[in-house]
């Protein structure tokens, strides 16, 4: 079973405690009424679906209940890092370098 580190609780716990919440760093538009259909399509539906390092959201549903972000390799399911919501997107090159 995948073990996931919750950046709020500071503990590494089985995946059953967590729920997946889709791709990360997709910002809700500030002015929804100004959006075109294409922009809505992109915001709501289009996803990177990366094979490799993937920025994604998780929620510690059976713990603190809070959302956080993670970078995980979708080929190996290995997590490089988890970080709190609102923190900037980590630099992927640095992460991969540190992981070596």
């Amino acid at each position, binding site marked *: *079973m*995948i073990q996931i580190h919750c950046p709020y609780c500071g503990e590494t716990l089985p*995946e*059953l405690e967590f*729920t*997946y919440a*889709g*791709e990360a760093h997709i910002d809700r538009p500030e002015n929804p009424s100004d959006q075109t*259909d*294409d922009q*809505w*399509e*992109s915001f*709501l*539906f*289009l*996803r*990177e*679906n*990366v*094979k490799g390092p*993937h920025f*994604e959201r998780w929620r510690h549903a059976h713990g603190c209940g809070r959302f956080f972000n993670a970078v*995980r390799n*979708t*080929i*190996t*399911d290995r997590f490089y890092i988890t970080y709190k919501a609102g923190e900037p997107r980590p630099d992927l090159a640095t992460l991969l370098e540190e992981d070596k």
Partner: protein
Amino acid sequence: MTRFNALNLVKNALTGHKNWTEQWPECQPKAEYDVVIVGAGGHGLGAAYYLAKEHGITNVAVIDKGWLGGGNTGRNTTIIRSNYLYDESQALFNHAVDLWQGLSQELNYNVMYSNRGCLMLAHTVHDVQSFKRHVHANRLNGIDNRWLTPEECKEYCPPVNIAKDARYPVMGGALQERAGTARHDAVAWGYARGAAERGVDIIQNCAVQAIRRGPDGAVIGVDTDKGFIKCKKVGVSASGHNSMVMATAGVRLPLESMPLQALVSEPVKPVFPCVVMSNAVHAYCSQSDKGELVIGSGTDQYVSYSQRGGLPLIEHTIAAISEVFPIFNRMRMLRKWGGITDNTPDRSPIIGKTPVPNLYVNCGWGTGGFKATPGSAHVFAHTIAKDEPHPINAPFSLDRFRTGRLIDEAAAAAVAH
């Protein structure tokens, strides 16, 4: 290519089965094709077959990074049914069920289609209401589906537990008798053989690295492990890897790829006469001709290409199977595996044109593509040949995610597709 018939069987038996011709030749890519299909699963090979047979387009290559039928065509639980809720889905899946009826004869290849019936069990009041709605929706469209009482369910499939004190008691079931199973590998092989016989090249172990576009934006060919192949049209049906293939042409898709697992038990004597699905406890099960129980599990909740899947899902599935069929609770499981499914937000497939001229896509089948193989392949071939969708796949366009005209089977069929 030797046809399979009684005379040839006798002839070859007398000569020690040494003179059968090969099913499809080993191919090296030509410099140019009219159509290149990316992905040699049932959907891709079938599309090539119908392009050749119904549209006279025989200068076609089907290219796969692995071996043909080695992806989800060879990994599914082989269930075939068309008891969907919405008219659009019913038309598409029933088109497939119609083609399944005569597919072995059409291909001269035994795909072992067995319309043994599919029983969907209801365990809650909501299930009962929802499935009865499906029954009525299907019957309005002339698709068979009928309601069974718990006792009738037990009669149709004796291993089902209908005890009143069960944790999730059976309150009835919707039965589609024309539904059933088929031999999944044979579907890929049959279409491959039929396509190759009509001149289609099947190129295995050759990954398509990128789709190349010309100055006007239209497709001009594909870059592969074996070099550039020029072509007039490209049809992509690469299952879990569609997002990556299409991204090379600059097309983003509304897909998320997730592992879906299945498992089989040790083989036993015939005990299970039909397909049973239970959405509420999330179990679906049938028995193969070899005697194994074929059991479908769920998808992992996260995007992954691991072709493995998480163990908690297997545990959950086995718990569900033991709940609905207590007689199986000491049965040993032989093996489990995973395949990568590409899921759309509305859990309906996308078959149609793309913003790129001469590029077509058949994707988003999620966890339920096998049942649609002949129908999907048939309308995809039509879309490629005519550069416009067949009336059946017109509603399944890529632009429905912009227009908002979704076909929301996600809520209609819950987990099981």
